């Protein structure tokens, strides 16, 4: 009898350890919660600081309007003056930018470097993780989970992401983005926990890349106001019309 129970016990443990679905579902839930905390329907003010290797600093002030876990996002430049009007919109995983000089809206790859900074356009308009990646918990301790995110299709910005997620708060601590060849493309560290709309979340993201070790890019959330914008404002024409200002 004991040996039968033992066998069943071993089998159960084996099933629990090897069944991807069990971990996969948990991991996906975590990522969905993280997306919800990090990317609410809101108007946010963001400061982007780019420290170049020659010691110079570039600053961008952005205002973002987002909906549906970043499935729809408009990002407008507030500073510098030269960038005002070159606003960005994310629609159906595609990133579009208004070229104010040419008066055209052009499609840009989501992982194209944003103004030469360590951030990509996808990072700035914050492509959500749960839609783009399959998640799996690789390890955990009392404070955090280590989740392995693998691209669901070839269009996801990174082939694989290792993400550390803080338990209880469901916020990211650190992420490492890899290419197909398993080489690190960039590291992102999330810090400065602050409460926005009664939700505690990191407000400072620091991006470093082993390809440009002397350069650092920092994204700081200075404010976030919860707002539900109607779907109709999330279209390319609204880059000129600025309908979001009516809400």
């Amino acid at each position: 009898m004991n040996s039968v129970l033992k066998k069943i016990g071993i089998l159960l443990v084996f099933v629990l350890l090897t069944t991807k679905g069990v971990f996969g579902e948990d991991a996906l839930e975590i990522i969905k919660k993280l997306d919800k905390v990090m990317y609410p329907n809101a108007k946010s003010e963001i400061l982007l600081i780019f420290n170049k290797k020659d010691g110079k600093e570039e600053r961008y002030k952005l205002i973002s309007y987002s909906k549906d876990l970043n499935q729809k996002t408009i990002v407008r430049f507030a500073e510098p003056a030269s960038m005002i009007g070159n606003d960005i919109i994310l629609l159906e995983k595609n990133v579009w930018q208004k070229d104010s000089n040419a008066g055209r809206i052009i499609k840009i790859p989501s992982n194209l470097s944003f103004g030469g900074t360590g951030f990509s356009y996808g990072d700035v308009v914050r492509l959500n993780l749960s839609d783009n990646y399959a998640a799996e918990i690789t390890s955990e301790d009392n404070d955090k989970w280590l989740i392995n995110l693998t691209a669901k299709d070839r269009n996801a910005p990174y082939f694989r992401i290792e993400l550390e997620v803080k338990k209880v708060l469901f916020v990211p601590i650190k992420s490492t983005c890899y290419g197909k060849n398993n080489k690190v493309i960039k590291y992102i560290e999330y810090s400065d926990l602050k409460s926005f709309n009664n939700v505690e979340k990191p407000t400072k993201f620091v991006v470093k890349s082993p390809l440009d070790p002397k350069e650092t890019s920092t994204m700081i959330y200075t404010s976030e106001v919860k707002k539900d914008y109607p779907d109709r404002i999330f279209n390319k024409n609204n880059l000129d019309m600025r309908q979001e200002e009516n809400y």
Partner: protein
Amino acid sequence: MVLIKLILRNIFSHKLRSTIIFIVISLVFSIMFLFLAFADGTSENMVNSILSITKPKCDIVVTAKGFLESKEANEKLEELNKMTISDYQSIRDKIQQLSEVSSVYVHTQPVNVNFIINEKRYKPVNFFGIEPDYSKHITSNVNITEGRFFENSDNNVILMHSSVGKQLNIKIGDTITTVGTDLFGQSITENFTVIGFYKSKIDSIGLATTALIDMNGYLMISGLVDGEASTMNINLKKNASLKESLTKLRQMAKDNNLNIEFNEFNIFYKNIEEIKLYAAIKIIVMFLSFIVIFIIMFGIMNVVSLNLKDRRKEIGSYYCLGAEKWFLNIMYSSEILIINVLSSIVGLISGLILRFIINSINITTDNPGFQIVLGGEKLYLGFNIYSVLYIFIIFVLITIITSFVTLGSALKVSPSVAVREVEE
């Protein structure tokens, strides 16, 4: 017979005027010919330099089914890139079984990514993967200026354009890191070892942004998997019929249930931007030459008109001898036509001789601006039968217009003019 005799007699009896018209038309024809040869040469240069690597000439292009339709419908590039041929090796084997086929090779889509060398990041370069079967074709279009060409065992190696090597002081054995996105928009970074530098047989500054890499490295930065290809090129044997070959290939794809389509090269690449640009330049040259010829036409008309005015006595004599107006019309028109045609032929021959001399001198330039104008590093004057026909047609038109304009009034001569001692 009498008519021909009279025409020839007229030509030789007014030697000076005939010679002047002859020289002017020959000169104009040969200059026009050289103008158009220059325009044709730039297009040919483009085909033999940049396009010989980026869009090598072949007979048939193989793609996934629906690719051309999607391309013509301006489908997003990322969506087009997803339309690939799977298991190209087995498809290639099947295509090669057709007796009409001379060679089949994969032609890769360029991956446009930045590269880092000596801690400096440079603007995007097009990375083309060189499949072993394609090597044979590309070696006929490029010269290795330093280092070596690809070998089957190569993994993550790169051949850069010699001008880039010189400008950035890149040496054989250096490591280049590519940074950017693959064909599907996913981030990539990959290291490549420089094995050499190349120059196209007809080089162009445009190739500075074209780097050649081995197929293993290409798979890493393109996002494609082994056996996946965007396009394959087919060259047919010399005596093979393109239409029949296409029918057989399409039937073969149908029989084997292959999700591929075959298109003629000229149809598939009918919208090559570079060719369109040089075609536009040719149209401008043709238009300008038309204007020049039009202006010269007035000069010729003037000479012919004066010539006929001075020959009023001769015309009157013909009337006295019972010649009809239509006869004189044919006779003088033929005279102008013969001079124009002969001088055009001489103009063409002298143009061809000049073309041969200029091409033999082998005038080359390193200046990027001139290279863009010339379509490559070398001044090459091309030959296109349609350009020659264009000039011929224009000159025949000039003859007809000259005849109409000048003969009408010049032949209104009274027969009494022939017996007058003094001209009015």
